[in-house]
C-alpha cells in the first residue's frame, strides 16, 4: 500500500481485517506522519509510541488467533486530552493537571479498546474545554493545517487538526456549545455532537455537566458513524446515559435508510444572514439549492428563541463550570502551590487555583459564581434555564414539520491566531449557530460545504430531534456524496501537504 495515511477509517479496518496490512504498519505510518508534521501543527500534547504499537500488536495477535475483530480494529485515533486513560497523562490543557496520570479509564477509552481502535495519543484543547480556538491551552496553540497562522477551532482543536493533517483518520472531541462542530467546520472535516446522553461521560472531565457530550471527528460521514457506534450506548456508570438502543447511524450513513428525496429540511431564519460572512452564506445557499435539486422539500423555519441561546449558554455553562471546577483544589491530585507550612488550606487553594488556571477559566468561574450567588440567581441562572425551555419548544415545534434543520456551522471561516484572544464576546460569537442544539440536546453534525473567504473551509450544520441521530447521518451522507461529485473528490484533497518537499 502506498500511503496508509490517505485511507479512510473504514478502508483501513477492511484492509486490516483482510490481512492486506497489519495494524502495526498502519499505526507506524501515522506515528511517522505525526513526527513529520506536528512541529508545525502541534495537535498532540502526548504521544506514546510504545503504547500505541502495543495496542496495534494486540489487534494483529487477535487476528492471527482467528478472533473476531471489531468494526474499527487497527484504526488509529487521536483522543482529546479530557478523557482519562490509564498509562497516559490527562491534562485538560491545564497547568493545574500537568503531569496527572489518572488511575482509571473513561468508558469511552474502554470501548475503544474493546473495538480494537488504536489510540495514538492525547490532543490539545482549550483549557477544560472552554474556548473556540484552542488558544486557551496552557501548552501552546494548535495551528490549522489549511493555514498555519489560523486557529483550528476549539475547544477540540487538537483533534480536528490531527484529522485534517492526516495524523489520524479518526479523533474524539467533546462538544458543550459547539466544540466538535466548530473545529470540524473550520478544518474541513466531519464532526458530530450526538444526542446528549448517547455517549458516556464517565471519565470525561466535567465542564458543564448538563451540556458536555463526546463525539466523533472523521474525514467521511461513514467513518464518523462507525466511531459514533463504538462510542455510544448505555453506561450504568453515568446517571445521564440514555438507556435505549443506539440509533442506526451506520445504516443511515451507508444510505440504507434512503437519501433525501422527499425529506423535509428546515432552514433556520435566525441562523443565517446578518453576522454571517458572505463566503459562508454563499456556500450555505449552494447547499440549500443542492438539497432542493436532490428532491428534498426545503422550507424556512423561524425559531425566535434562538436569538437568546448565546446569553443563556454563557450563564448556564459558566454556572455549572464554577461548581464542577471546585474539585481542583490542590488537595488530592494535580498542582498544589503555596503550601509553605504557614498558609492555611483556603489560602493554598486560592494560590493553587491562581497559578493553575488560565484567564478564560478564571473568568468563567467568577461569572458562574456571580450568576449563582444569592440575589442574582433568579435574574441570571434561573432566567437562562427558562430560555432553555423556550429553545427546546422552538425545536420541538420545528420537528413536528421537518425532519432536519439546517444552518451554517460557524459565522466565519477560521480566524487568525491572536485576533480574539482577549476579547471574550468576540470569541463567544464563534458558537452562535451551534449553541441552540447544545441547549436542546439534539444531535448535530458539521459537514464540509466548500471553501469560503480566503479559500478556507466552510461547514454546514445538520440538526435533528433528540435520539434521531440517524437523520443527520442520512442527510449528511447524501449531501457529502453530491458535493464530492461536484468538487471531483473530497475537500480535504486540497489541504496543504505540510511536509516540506513531501510527495503525495
Amino acid at each position, binding site marked *: 500500500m502506498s500511503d496508509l495515511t490517505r485511507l479512510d477509517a473504514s478502508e483501513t479496518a477492511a484492509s486490516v481485517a483482510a490481512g492486506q496490512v497489519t495494524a502495526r504498519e498502519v499505526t507506524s505510518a501515522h506515528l511517522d506522519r505525526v513526527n513529520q508534521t506536528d512541529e508545525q501543527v502541534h495537535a498532540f500534547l502526548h504521544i506514546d509510541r510504545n503504547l500505541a504499537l502495543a495496542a496495534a500488536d494486540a489487534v494483529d495477535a487477535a487476528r492471527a488467533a482467528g478472533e473476531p475483530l471489531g468494526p474499527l480494529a487497527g484504526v488509529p485515533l487521536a483522543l482529546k486530552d479530557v478523557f482519562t486513560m490509564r498509562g497516559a497523562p490527562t491534562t485538560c490543557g491545564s497547568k493545574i493537571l500537568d503531569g*496527572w496520570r*489518572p*488511575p*482509571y479509564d473513561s468508558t469511552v477509552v474502554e470501548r475503544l479498546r474493546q473495538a480494537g481502535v488504536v489510540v495514538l495519543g492525547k490532543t490539545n484543547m482549550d483549557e477544560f474545554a472552554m474556548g473556540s480556538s484552542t488558544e486557551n491551552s496552557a501548552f501552546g496553540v494548535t495551528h490549522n493545517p489549511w493555514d498555519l497562522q489560523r486557529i483550528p477551532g476549539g475547544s477540540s482543536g487538537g483533534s480536528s487538526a490531527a484529522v485534517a493533517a492526516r495524523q489520524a483518520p479518526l479523533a474524539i472531541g467533546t462538544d458543550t456549545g459547539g466544540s466538535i462542530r466548530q473545529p470540524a467546520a473550520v478544518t474541513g472535516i466531519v464532526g458530530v455532537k450526538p*444526542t*446528549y*446522553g448517547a455517549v458516556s461521560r464517565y471519565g470525561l472531565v466535567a465542564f458543564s455537566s*448538563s451540556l458536555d457530550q463526546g463525539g466523533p471527528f472523521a474525514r467521511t460521514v461513514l467513518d464518523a458513524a462507525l466511531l459514533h457506534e463504538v462510542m455510544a450506548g448505555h453506561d*450504568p456508570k453515568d*446517571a*445521564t446515559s*440514555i438507556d435505549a438502543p443506539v440509533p442506526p447511524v451506520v445504516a443511515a450513513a451507508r444510505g440504507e435508510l434512503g437519501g433525501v428525496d422527499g425529506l423535509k429540511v428546515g432552514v433556520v431564519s435566525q441562523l443565517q444572514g446578518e453576522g454571517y460572512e458572505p463566503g459562508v452564506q454563499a456556500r450555505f445557499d449552494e447547499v440549500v439549492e443542492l438539497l432542493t435539486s436532490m428532491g428534498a422539500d426545503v422550507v424556512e423555519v423561524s425559531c425566535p*428563541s434562538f436569538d*437568546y441561546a448565546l*446569553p*443563556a449558554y*454563557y*450563564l448556564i455553562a459558566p454556572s455549572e463550570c464554577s461548581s464542577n471546577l471546585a474539585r481542583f483544589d490542590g*488537595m*488530592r*491530585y494535580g498542582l*498544589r502551590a503555596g*503550601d509553605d*507550612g504557614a498558609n*492555611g*488550606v483556603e*489560602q*493554598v*487553594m*486560592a*494560590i493553587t*487555583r*491562581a497559578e493553575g*488556571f488560565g*484567564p478564560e477559566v*478564571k*473568568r468563567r*468561574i*467568577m*461569572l458562574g*459564581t*456571580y450568576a449563582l*450567588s444569592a440575589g442574582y440567581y433568579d*435574574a*441570571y441562572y*434561573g432566567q*437562562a*434555564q*427558562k*430560555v*432553555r*425551555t*423556550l429553545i427546546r419548544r422552538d425545536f420541538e415545534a420545528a420537528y413536528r414539520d421537518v425532519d432536519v434543520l439546517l444552518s451554517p456551522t460557524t459565522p466565519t471561516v477560521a480566524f487568525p491566531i491572536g485576533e480574539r484572544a482577549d476579547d*471574550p*464576546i468576540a470569541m463567544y460569537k464563534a458558537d452562535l449557530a451551534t449553541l441552540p442544539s447544545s*441547549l*436542546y*440536546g439534539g444531535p448535530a453534525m458539521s459537514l464540509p460545504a466548500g471553501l469560503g473567504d480566503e479559500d478556507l473551509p466552510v461547514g454546514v450544520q445538520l440538526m435533528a430531534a*433528540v*435520539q434521531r441521530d440517524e437523520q443527520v447521518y442520512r442527510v449528511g451522507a447524501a449531501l457529502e456524496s453530491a458535493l464530492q461529485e461536484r468538487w471531483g473528490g473530497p475537500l480535504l484533497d486540497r489541504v496543504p501537504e505540510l511536509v516540506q518537499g513531501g510527495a503525495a
Partner: protein
Amino acid sequence: MPALHRDDIAHLARLSRLQLTDAERDHYGEQLEVILAAVARVAEVAADDVPPTTHAVPVVNVTRPDVVVPCLPRGDVLSGAPAAEDDRFRVPRILDEEEQ
C-alpha cells in the same frame, strides 16, 4: 445590572478561591461587566409561567443494584496526590491560629 466594583470582584474571587492581583481584579472586572451586560438579555424573554429546563434529556430515579464492588487500590489513588503521608492525603492546616 449593578456595576462591579473592585470590592465586588475581590468578594467573587474569594468565593471562587482565586487569588488575584489588583491589576487582574481591574481587568477581570471590566471584562465581567461587558459579559454580564451581554447575557442580561435573558431577562427580556421567558415569563413566570415558563418552567426551567435543567437537563436536555431528562432521566429520573437512576439507581444501580446495591452490590458492593471493590474501590481503587490505595496506592493508585494516592499516586496523584500533591502530598501524602501514612497512606493518607496530607493537607495544609484547615483552621486559623485563633480557631485552634
